[in-house]
């Protein structure tokens, strides 16, 4: 590595300000609309991704308020059955596919490259493409809803209700195609994360020094890769049944109705851990920072993540306990579902031990973690309850299950996420969120949440099925429903305050230093917000907590080029530097490819020929994407 002529300028040759200038020139996104549309900077895309997902959270939340309005009283007439069915289907679909999964992946898109100390995510163009696909899928769902063509078959769209015979119109097709959009984008991100984590870690970050959040995203990404093909097959088969009269789900012609359920839940169950595991990683990160010590039992935590991931693939039947499968098989799924309490418990115990041994600081992110513990354990325990077949025969498809999954989804994923947003907001924006407002937000959401969802357990046991748009006055449910609806207002006020805080702080919050919490992972080793190239010099890691070992001076590795985008590739296990690898530059082609794919997918709701004709522009866009442009990134 001695050649240092201008065509191959290395960072070794430059001092700090000059290095910054050169690297910025190489990595920065050009200003203007074109720059914004063609950028592949993982931080810009990650921020976009997060913002979009949070907007979907707000929209989905507004839908839930409409439901609560309708359900507050018996036989209310605010919303008719047709609208109501669209509303709860879109609430569920939106929350799962457009909010929860993408927001977790979005956090990873932003954070993982920083946490492993590299300059960019792997396959940055694919990353841009995945965002556009996600956005298109979200718009498809919501525009359809505005046009009164929103899916109305529930978030798991059971056949035959969603099949050709009973779901006329295009509503169910829109649901199925929206799935395709979000799956494509989720799969793309999963592949990027896996490669980033395996091949781009900072030198010295061997497997046992990977931050727990990164581990959790790695396991999550594998789950995505293994589980999502099932829903792809399922939704494709559904579209084929509806469009070209295949008979996958038609019992009259040898098809089977439960086949759908098996395929859906083979994906759908891992899906909930795809949402939950990243949240676990966030909790570990926050706990470590705010108890001022590393998380207790690192190895145990990693094993828990992996075993949850493995077990997750073997539980799907617990969503089908009353579908009439053989009892013996169901018992197996009871045992395996309950078994997942062991890794979950292990994690809880390790966090408790960490807090016990540490010195807690009660800042807003940590408050959300405490809220998470209180709520998630309830949700997990009700999960253990419904895992029992006889128990489940009474509560399946009732508000008890609605309570279970909001406890685990909101308590287990949204609470950690809110904590994580308070925690990483300074890194994302360079500004702090308000600590005072944060306490109010936490208090309102915590109280509002429990008041809203705890009574649902009781409603379920007292016979109230889910997915009903109304109930009769003589059913003994109206009091609790009114309480729930009123409490949902408290919850909504809490969220509103959160949005206000986020928007206000983003504009005029106190400027953040590079490491405001005294945290120990690499993302805090660079400025807030980070420069386009993340790290001026690649950090070298000597322990699990690189910043607390050596708070002022992080050892760095040098030798990367500064005149073109280049990053360091390291070995999978030990993270020993192996090579310098170019990283693609900005490109508009991912957007074109996404547009072409979008047009094809939407058109194919109407005619199968769309796939044939649509593949032409898609192929053109892909060739344009990969065709070498003669830049140095392409050629080295």
């Amino acid at each position, binding site marked *: 590595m001695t050649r240092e002529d201008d065509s191959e300028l290395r960072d070794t040759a430059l001092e700090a300000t000059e290095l910054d200038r050169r690297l910025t020139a190489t990595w920065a996104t050009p200003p203007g609309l074109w720059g914004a549309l063609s950028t592949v900077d993982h931080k810009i895309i990650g921020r976009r991704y997060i913002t979009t997902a949070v907007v979907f959270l707000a929209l989905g939340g507004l839908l839930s308020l409409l439901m609560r309005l309708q359900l507050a009283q018996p036989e209310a007439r605010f919303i008719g059955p047709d609208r109501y069915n669209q509303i709860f289907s879109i609430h569920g679909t939106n929350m799962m596919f457009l909010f929860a999964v993408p927001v977790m992946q979005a956090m990873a898109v932003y954070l993982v490259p920083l946490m492993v100390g590299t300059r960019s995510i792997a396959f940055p163009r694919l990353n841009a493409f995945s965002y556009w696909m996600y956005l298109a899928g979200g718009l498809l769902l919501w525009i359809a809803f505005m046009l009164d063509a929103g899916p109305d078959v529930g978030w798991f769209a059971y056949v035959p209700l969603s099949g050709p015979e009973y779901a006329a119109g295009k509503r169910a097709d829109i649901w199925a195609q929206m799935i395709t959009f979000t799956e494509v984008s989720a799969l793309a991100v999963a592949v990027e994360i896996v490669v980033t984590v395996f091949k781009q870690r900072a030198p010295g970050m061997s497997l046992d020094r990977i931050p727990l959040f990164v581990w959790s995203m790695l396991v999550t990404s594998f789950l995505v890769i*293994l589980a999502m*093909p099932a829903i792809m097959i399922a939704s494709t088969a559904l579209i084929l049944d509806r469009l070209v009269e295949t008979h996958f789900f038609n019992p009259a012609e040898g098809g089977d109705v439960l086949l759908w359920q098996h395929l859906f839940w083979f994906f759908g169950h891992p899906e909930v851990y795809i949402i939950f595991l990243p949240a676990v990683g966030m909790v570990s990160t926050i706990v470590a920072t705010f108890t001022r010590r590393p998380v207790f039992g690192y190895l145990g935590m990693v094993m828990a993540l992996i075993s949850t991931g493995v077990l997750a693939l073997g539980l799907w039947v617990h969503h089908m306990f009353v579908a009439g499968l053989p009892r013996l098989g169901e018992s197996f799924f009871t045992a395996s579902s309950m078994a997942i309490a062991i890794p979950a418990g292990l994690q809880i115990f390790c966090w408790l031990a960490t807090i016990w041994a540490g010195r807690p600081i009660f800042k807003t992110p940590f408050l959300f973690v405490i809220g998470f513990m209180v709520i998630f354990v309830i949700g997990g325990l009700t999960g253990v309850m419904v895992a029992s077949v006889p128990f489940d025969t009474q509560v399946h498809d009732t508000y008890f299950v609605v309570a279970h999954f909001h406890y685990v989804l909101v308590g287990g994923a949204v609470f950690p996420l809110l904590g994580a947003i308070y925690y990483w907001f300074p890194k994302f924006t360079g500004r702090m969120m308000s600590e005072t407002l944060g306490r109010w937000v936490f208090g309102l959401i915590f109280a509002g949440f429990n008041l809203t969802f705890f009574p649902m357990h009781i409603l379920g046991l007292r016979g109230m099925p889910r997915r009903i748009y109304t109930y009769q006055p003589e059913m003994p449910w109206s009091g609790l429903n009114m309480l729930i609806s009123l409490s949902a207002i408290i919850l909504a006020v809490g969220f509103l305050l959160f949005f206000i805080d986020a928007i206000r702080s983003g504009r005029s919050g106190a400027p953040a230093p590079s490491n405001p919490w005294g945290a120990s992972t690499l993302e805090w080793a660079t400025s807030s917000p980070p420069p386009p190239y993340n790290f001026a010099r690649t950090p070298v890691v000597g322990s699990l907590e690189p910043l607390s070992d050596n708070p002022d001076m992080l050892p760095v590795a040098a030798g990367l080029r500064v005149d073109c985008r280049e990053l360091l590739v390291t070995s999978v296990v030990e993270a020993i530097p192996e090579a310098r690898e170019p990283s693609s530059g900005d490109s508009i082609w991912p957007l074109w490819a996404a547009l072409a794919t979008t047009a094809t997918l939407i058109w194919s709701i109407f005619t199968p020929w769309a796939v044939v004709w649509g593949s032409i522009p898609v192929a053109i866009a892909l060739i344009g994407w990969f065709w070498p442009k003669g830049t140095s990134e392409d050629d080295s």
Partner: protein
Amino acid sequence: MLIEGTGFALSIVVYLYLMSLAPSWPLNAAPPDLLAGTSLTALLVASLVPNLFLARWARNQNLLKVRVGLIVMSLLGIAPLILRAFEFPAMHIKWDQNAYGSIVWVMLGLHTTHILTDLIETLVLTCLMFSRHGDNGRRFGDVSDNAMYWNFVVVTWLPMYACLYWVPRL
């Protein structure tokens, strides 16, 4: 490839699942004719030989041989498509007749799209290798990735072939 492999595996699982439910299998159809499918299988397996050579040449960055190899592989990508066209009628069933027809057509279709995408990729690479962008480490890397992908397409076909052609004869 892990993703697609899972997809292929699942399609086989669906096939076997539907079979397990059916009173007789194939449902209201004769077992498929073997000729087209078997010759396609033979052809695919045979195509592995030039493909492995191509991969080796790409590793050695031998431009000339890679060019030749790519042309051969392009042709070997087109030939199975022709045979595939005969496979669909050999199934003696249409996709909209019953669930057996549906899964059989989807499995064939799924695999065909993989042949097709690989073929297009091979064609594009062939053009590239004849252009000024050709002689370049990254392009050779692309060629060996592409060869790898073809191996995958061939290998995944084998269980599908067994499933489509031989399971109905059990």
